[in-house]
């Protein structure tokens, strides 16, 4: 079997101390296969964002370890983690993904520029083409709609050909049409380019774009589902809630 793109082993995250301690993740072990689109679902406060942050080298665990491919993140210094994020990880947040003073093009090429790398122009053109933002490249974020901004963010995540892309409710702020477009592009990135994507979502329809869904509740993985459809997901959520 191939190495998972990312995995957490016995991951535990406790916020605070003593009486106020909150266990956001409780001994979670999970693997994410390369070239797969995984959605993480669960009720609010179940630990989805926490898990994603720990996998994405943004936060560290209280206990357990996280691997990105063969690399163990736990125990790395800030500098190494920063470089890892820069070179191997892409992000799409729910909002405020773009630097307001930079144009769309500058935002997309920012990670490469920060790393001092040349942008792969052919790849850049391809990504821009697929996302349909070719005519927006010289605009600033304030001159774009929310959907366009999220597509630029997706382009930025894809442009540096990261090993894995994380999204925390990337379509959460979008209407259903723009959301569907964005998710369609993410699906395409997985199918056409073999991109690995892990996405946190609340929405059954969004989750149905994924290959696999991992369900979290109270810091535990409680279930998973392959090749979901919106109906199957809704049913599952209902059963999980009861």
């Amino acid at each position, binding site marked *: 079997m191939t190495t998972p793109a990312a995995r957490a082993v016995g991951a535990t995250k406790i916020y605070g101390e003593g009486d106020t301690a909150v266990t956001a993740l409780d001994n979670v072990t999970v693997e994410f296969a390369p070239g797969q689109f995984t959605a993480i679902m669960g009720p609010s406060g179940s630990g989805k964002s926490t898990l994603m942050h720990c996998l994405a080298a943004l936060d560290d665990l209280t206990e357990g370890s996280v691997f990105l491919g063969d690399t163990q993140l736990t125990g790395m210094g800030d500098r190494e983690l920063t470089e890892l994020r820069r070179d191997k990880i892409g*992000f799409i947040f729910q909002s405020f993904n773009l*630097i307001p003073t930079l144009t769309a093009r500058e935002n997309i090429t920012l990670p490469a520029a920060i790393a001092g790398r040349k942008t792969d122009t052919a790849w850049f053109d391809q990504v821009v083409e697929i996302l349909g933002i070719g005519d927006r490249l010289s605009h600033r974020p304030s001159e774009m709609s929310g959907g366009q901004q999220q597509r630029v963010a997706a382009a930025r995540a894809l442009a540096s050909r990261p090993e894995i892309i994380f999204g925390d409710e990337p379509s959460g702020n979008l209407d259903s049409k723009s959301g569907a477009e964005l998710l369609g592009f993410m699906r395409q990135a997985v199918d056409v380019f073999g991109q690995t994507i892990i996405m946190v979502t609340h929405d059954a329809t969004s989750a149905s774009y994924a290959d696999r869904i991992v369900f979290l509740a109270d810091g535990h993985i409680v279930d998973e589902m392959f090749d979901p459809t919106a109906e199957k997901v809704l049913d599952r959520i209902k059963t999980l809630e009861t």
Partner: protein
Amino acid sequence: MVRAAIRGIWEHKLRTLLLVLSIVAGVSFVAGSLIFTDTIGGSFDALFEGAFEGIDIRINPDVDQGFTSLQPAFDADVLTIVESTPGIIDTWPGVGGLVNLSVGGEVQSIQGPPNFALSWEGDPTLTLVEGRGAQGPTEVAIDTTARERYDLAIGDTIGLAATGAISDYTVTGVLGGFGAGPALFTFDLATATSVLGLDGLYTTIDVAVEDPTLLQEVLDDLTSRLPDGVVAVDAQAAAEEQAAQLKQALGFIQTVLLVFAGISVVVGVFVVYNAFRTVLGQRTRELALFRVLGATKKQLVTSVIVEALVIGLISGVAGLIGGILLATAARAAFSLFGGSGLADGGLVLAPGTFVTAFGVGMAVTLVSALLPAARASQVSPMAALATIDKPPRRLTKQLVVGSVLGVPGVVLVALTGLDRVNLLTGGIGALAILIATYVFGAIIGRPFVRTIARFLGNTPVRKIATDNAARSPRRTGATAGALMFGVAFVVAVSVIVVITQKTATAVLEDAVSAELTIQSAGADPTAGVSPEIASIVGELDFVAATQSSRFAQGSINEESTFFGSFEPETVEQTYFFDEVQGNWSDLVGETVAVQRAQADELGLAPGDPVTVDLGTGPEQWTVAVVWDYSSSVDDTQGFYLPTSTLADRFPQGNVVSIGVKLTGGTDPDQAKATIAELIQTDYPFANVTTQDELLADIQGQLLGLLAFVFVLLAMSIFIALLGIVLILLLSVFERTRELGLLRAIGSTRVQIRAMIRWEAVFVSILGALMGVVVGTFIGWGLSGSIFGAGFSFVIPWTWIGLGLIASIVAGVLAAILPARRAANLNILEAIAYE
């Protein structure tokens, strides 16, 4: 609301601290200046309390030159006239003049107040504090100033002489001195007369009258009896006047200090205003939320004002403490430079100082907060719902205000540069330009930063820094503007000082052909040297000519002036002239040589009569020569008399300087060594200097002046830098999310720090460049009024270069704290930030 305001102050401790610091710096300066001058003023009062007690009338020469070598003397016969006047019961004749001092075999030639010798035999003018008065030819008593300044004690032996060979004297006592100014050395009358070479002359006669109620009658009687050039004055009135003069000098010092303190307060106002504006801009949503919840506009304004008042109050207290510290430091520095006696008493904390310190602190914060508060209160409740990104505001207002102030300002300063209007008008113009530039900073900020960035090449880090600096042009302009003030003042002063230096050195370089100058080694060069040195040096085979000059004060055609002097025989060998009208050989007896500018002014030509008064009444003299140096020389002292005439009129006076022209091919340094060796024993206080040394001397003195002004301006620049720190911190705070995002997608801490640093450097270069341009222009303008139209303008490139480098360094330093904040942001908190 008020509670919210106070909580705001507490929650943003660092911000509050920096705000307070920018106000405190200015307030401390104001309070410190007041405390310092009050303290010195207090000791002056103590000093003059009881001065001249027991003396009713003082007889002086008409021209009272104070403690200089120009102090003329009058004939000792005057004493008989005084004694024979009815109603007088006691008289104390005395002599006084400059002396040179040697302690432990070392000639004391410090810069600063002179050493003054006088006779004292127990007259009421001075009081003994220790030991006894000097008696006989080998004793001297000193005052407390001399004791502190030269570290002397009773029993010590010191060397003193007016100009000739040193004689040794033993210190027998210490008298109460003035604390500042000249150090006093007293002898008995006979010894003082011989030390000063004033045989048969007096410089003062103190008089006590029988019936003080008849003082005016006695004064009138004396006045009618005294010869021309000698006057009788009411001693008490004279003492009061002397105290008043010292106080006036002190008042001048106070004004200078307060002007610089004022500059730093103004810079503080701009910094604090900018900070309030930025903070309130950032809090738009919060304020709007208050409005949604039903707060009135008035409540919003009140909350901001309360915040300002609390900060102002804290600043007032801290400023007062800072002022005490500053005054203590200033007093220590003052006593180092010869004001020892005044440094003894406690600091004077006048109630006015308290009021001023608190007043300034409050005023600065209130003034700075009022406008932003008013604007903030206009926030509509809708703003709470709006997204953050506001389109940049148009800068039309800036353009209008800047032009309305700037254009007349430029015109006024330009007119001053052409010497058409006076210095005050120029100053007002300069102020207008400064404010206009401050306002324009918002307009030129963006294109300027972009240009520099293009010039430096665009790395992504620099690109983001550039965009950030250009993002809120008003904020960037205002931050740079505060620095601009300080830099502009520094540059303007440097321009004036450099031009002064050029003017001063031009006289030596382009007007004086003599290679060596012999002057007094003492503190006051007007103490002069013995006229005999000229004849001794003139004998040497490598000396082609000597030129002795004397100095006098008086008036010409009723305009008071200083007179220099020429020796007509050698004047052409020792000076360079561009124009000579008349014959130098005619410059003998009662004649004057007039420089072209002054001759034009008074409409004089050779052969014309002029009225000259050397303090002994008006006389009819003749213009012998009208002359001019080369055009580069700007000599303000335009009237020269024959040296021999001054020697006849003031036999006790010395030669101020002797110029020595060497024969061709003689090495000046070698000649200097030979002459110094030759005159050393007989004239230990005569100092031989080469032209180069004199030039270096002038430069050194002006450099000292410049350094002094820089110290006074340091506070303003410090406040401006605090402003940069403050605004950067606020910007970092405002951009938390962006910084978090940058970190999330892989920017290293080093890159984030560099970004903030570049932003700071951009702002400080902007401020420095604006300051340099404006300061150079203002410096040029004010020079026109100071030096007259057509002065030769010099741009102090070295200073400008140093200033720019210093600004960049300062920018980097100012960025340290904000950059660290930005780099250490917690990424997760930053991206979750609302």
